[in-house]
């Protein structure tokens, strides 16, 4: 199974893989800040012009969603699996 070996390859070298990914992310943020490469004239709002705006949006947004959802859930929405059974 070539695919399996492919996955195992990366799992075996997890730290390196993660390192490379993080480096790429940093590069992405840097590139975003260069006006020549990334043309932000289509952006509609002021915040969008800040460098790495969307990166922060993604990161914080995800965190907020996780925290709020879990809070909502533990406030009483989540319940045992056999709640509806008689």
């Amino acid at each position, binding site marked *: 199974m070539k695919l*399996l070996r492919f996955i195992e390859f990366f799992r075996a070298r997890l730290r390196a893989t993660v390192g490379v990914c993080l480096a790429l992310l940093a590069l992405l943020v840097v590139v975003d800040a260069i006006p020549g490469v990334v043309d932000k004239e289509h952006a*509609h*709002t002021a915040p969008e012009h800040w460098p790495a705006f969307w*990166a922060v949006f*993604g990161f914080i*947004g*995800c965190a907020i969603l996780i925290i709020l959802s879990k809070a909502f859930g533990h406030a009483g929405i*989540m*319940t*045992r699996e056999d709640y509806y059974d008689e």
Partner: protein
Amino acid sequence: MSDLWLHPASALILGALLLPLIPARLKKVWLLAVPIAAFALNTIMPPGVHGQWQFLDWTLTFGRVDRLASVFGHIMSLISIVATLYGLHVKEDAQHIAAWIYAGAALGAVYAGDFLTLFLFWEMMAFSSVFLVWFRRRKESPAAGYRYLLVHMAGGVCLLAGIVLHASTPGSSFAFEAFEVSKMTPASWLVLIGFLVNGAVPPFHAWLPDAYGEGTFNGSIFLCTYTTKTAVYALCRGFAGLDLLVPLGVAMALYGVVYAVLENDSRRLLAYHIISQVGYMVAAVGLGTEMAINGACAHAFANILYKGLLFMGCGAVLHMTGQSKFTELGGLYQKMPWTFLLTLIGGLSISAFPLTAGFVAKSMIVAAGFEAHNLWAAFLLMLASVGTFLHTGLKVPYFIFFGKNHCRPETWERAAEPPWNMMTAMAISAFLCLFVGCYTPYLYDLLPHPVHYHPYTAYHLSETLQMLLFTAVSFFLFLKKLEPEPTISLDLDWPYRKGGRMFLWLAQKPVQFADNCLGEFYRVGGIAGLMGSARLAGWFDGRVIDGVVDGLAEAVRKLGQRLRPVQRGAVQENLTLAFALGAALLIVLWLVW
């Protein structure tokens, strides 16, 4: 209507009805040929109005073909091929029949030119799709299907009431055209509610996770496609530009995301996610601009592709392992790597990752939001995209295929790659997701309005990549908090599930008791009275009449003795004799008069 025109639905419905007659050797061929025929019919159909039929006082239009209808018709008939292929090995004919009638009814609804035809197919969809829930045959299935049916009937009666009201107001026609969204009447509200129920718009949404999580592994592919997208089509046609739909759609998008984060069952998670995705489409319909409508159609098109793919992936896991809950799965990449990859493609596509269908479709809606200066909507929809990637792009693949291995030994034993037809179906869908994403004219040429949107700008790429990849970072950091918990989430089906039980108790105890009491009343009122008056008459007869009649009585008695042998005590004889005597009497009287 001069040229011969065949409704694409006719291929599916006829194919369904003829399926039991096909010999077993040719069944697989038939199973593939019929949806292909439907797709072919759909593609060659010329625009215009076809298929009109006179029913009592009204003219029904079965084939109103224009660009808006065609884009939906195209993807619906296309996916019927893939979905049938996915379930090719299912031996129970009835499942295929139900699925095809359902798909055919959806096509019928999309091409319906008038409200009555729309309603006909709307009901047909409800009645055929419920079988796809029941076919799973778990002990929860009958009840889940029953609730599904009742909710859809409720939506259907609202729709019907709205149609009747609308058709009865003077000056309105029967044709299915846009309503005046600036002047909503009770009729248009009722029709809207009917559409919203099928579209699983909160507060009418709870049926969707309930039923779609319960469907068969292959039936769910059909289920996730047709009902909601037909509703989206109907909203596009009828209520484009209705302002209410924007906040409703955005709320829907976030609502679905929140519940998806909490959900333990992978297919229910995907079902909640449908609510989220349809929220984008509903919001787009609300925005109403050409780009927004294009976006809604494009997103519906793409959504069918990648949602189908995701359901296929999780369905494959379900089919092979018998499990769909995260707390029972994990680490499956070792046994099902290709399923993992294809599911991942689906997840990336739904998250609007570059090079996938979602990137060129979903973002059109957000762009339309920005263009219309509806900034709240646009940003909140972007937030929903974050959530989408979180639970469908990351959580689903991670907790099924990686993560902690919660699999029980027998689950692990059973896990393996699914049969060839399922893999092929998934591969085709994945290919289409990537194809549509890379070669935009395929989709854009089908859209109802001219497209002025260019997804592959540097800014858009940067924005999307940043957002999604940093979401992933957040995901991995919060991994502990996201561990699945074996719970269910209460939703707005609570009122009618609990309420339904109470209603049934009411029907069984107090109401039945009252009715039974009433039934015994005849004994008290009727018979007692009868017996009383009979006794009275008896006394009267005995005392008063007897005296006079005694002489006569003796003569009569003698006559009676002569006649007795005639009577044998058989009721029918007595009755017939009575009637015959009566008839004879009447004839005599008639002759005399």
